[in-house]
């Protein structure tokens, strides 16, 4: 009796394994492309990228099998470091929001942002992905390090629409205050952690070769 069950099971397992193996390259290519698109979107001038992992020892390695949180360095066609794309997440209005943002060490600013996942209310909270004025904030959002190099000079903060006066402020969204603030919080927390690390290891990143995946 169980022989049939086991037989069917074996067959099914086999079938899945074949499909999995067959689709895996396609899926991985899709994912890589999607990631690439996202990275290039938040680092507008970049055309190549290298993914680094931050090892527990606090070093960036480009070894793809290395464990640790990943950042993606973007380079232009001449191999010059444009910036680093960093993934960050935090609680939004409805659920966790994940964003990818580009940090440009030269400008000491965030130069782009892309929402990867969000369940914010359509039409309201999802303005964080569509609202032109809001996205304007992230062309050059100041994340200058303070002289000590340990932390930021000014923490990123979201203000009411129309009240932005400083380069480190985010002009909020009317009617979607919570989502806009959430983005500010996510960026503030993440940048406070990452910007000092990246600046410390900047040389390594600049020197890093870009692997020509694209």
């Amino acid at each position: 009796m169980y022989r049939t069950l086991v037989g069917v099971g074996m067959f099914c397992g086999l079938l899945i394994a074949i499909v999995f193996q067959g689709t895996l390259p396609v899926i991985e290519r899709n994912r890589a492309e999607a990631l690439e698109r996202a990275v290039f979107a938040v680092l507008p001038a970049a055309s190549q990228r290298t993914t680094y992992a931050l090892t527990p020892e606090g070093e960036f390695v480009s070894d793809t099998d290395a464990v640790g949180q990943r950042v993606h360095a973007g380079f232009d066609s001449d191999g010059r470091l444009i910036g680093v794309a960093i993934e960050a997440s935090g609680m939004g209005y409805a659920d966790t929001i994940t964003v990818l943002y580009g940090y440009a060490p030269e400008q000491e600013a965030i130069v782009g942002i892309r929402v990867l996942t969000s369940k914010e209310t359509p039409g309201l909270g999802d303005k964080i992905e569509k609202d032109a004025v809001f996205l304007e904030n992230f062309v050059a959002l100041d994340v200058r390090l303070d002289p000590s190099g340990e932390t930021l000079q000014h923490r990123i903060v979201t203000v009411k629409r129309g009240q932005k006066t400083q380069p480190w402020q985010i002009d909020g969204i009317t009617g979607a205050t919570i989502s806009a603030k959430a983005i500010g919080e996510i960026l503030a927390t993440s940048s406070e952690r990452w910007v000092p690390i990246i600046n410390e290891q900047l040389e390594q990143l600049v020197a890093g070769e870009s692997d020509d995946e694209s």
Partner: protein
Amino acid sequence: MSAKNKTLEIDTSPHIVSGASVEVIMRNVVFALVPVCIFSVYVFGLTALITLTAATLSCLLTEHVLCRWRGDRSTLGDWSVAITGILYGLTLPPALPVWMVVLGGVVAVGVGKFLFGGLGHNAFNPALIGRAFLQAAFPVSMTTWYPALGAERFAVLPPSTFTLPFASPVYDSISGATPLAVIKFDGDITAATDLLMGLTSGSTGETSGLLILAGGLYLIARKMMNWRIPVAIFATVFALSGVFYLIDPAAYPGPLFMLFSGGLMLGAVFMATDMVASPMTSFGCVLYGVLIGALVVVIRLWGGLPEGVMYAILFANAVSPHIDNLIQPRVYGTTERGAS
């Protein structure tokens, strides 16, 4: 004599009645709401008048048409749908496009009342269903507030009011913010006197706490409203927000602000007391009020929304059958509290 051969009418006891009637109760609720409406027109001008009229008319018309469609007598005469219409209108932002007002009115009566079986069967407050639907459908319009006491409020209509049906409304650059939104997003407190007098931005009818209270007192005096519900709500909100205010006055608004801001007054006095959707027993009503009060505080202080009265009441409406099941009066001569 002729009397002896006359046919007598027979009826069943009791042969006298108290004179209370659904119509009279409902009509008095409408009366109690009229000053609130008038004040709202004073504060927000023509656009509030149009919103209130459109809300009431759309509810009345929906009820009439649906009754006829079902093949029944029109039930406009019991005044209950008039209450729904006015209350619904009072919960809307003054400058809401008329087409949205009408849509919500149709939903309020059609879904909130008719589909449930009409008067006496609506499990939820129909006016709030209409508003909740609009809140979910048009979140931006529903949170764009017209400023109070604008100079030209009787001369000029905001461009949004007469937006073409199904089109996006265009709002003036000048728009107000409700005291609750102000405190939630900016951390500023509105002056208590302004709150009390209702001279703030907000829904058409939610701003004047005093007039709402007066209407409620009138109905309570005439025994047409269960005073326990609003009192329990107020007491709970006051106590809970008071505790948090004492713990950290910087982070939490004071209890008086909580009482008089937003839709709490209107909701507690006129919405939560909807007889059909609230519990029957006195103790049940107190529990119901406490539940609403607690939810309002929780949503306002920790939720994503600045205001939670509508959701608190709708939630409590859903709980009220259970309150009724659990809290039955103890039958005379028995020791146990009611059967399940």
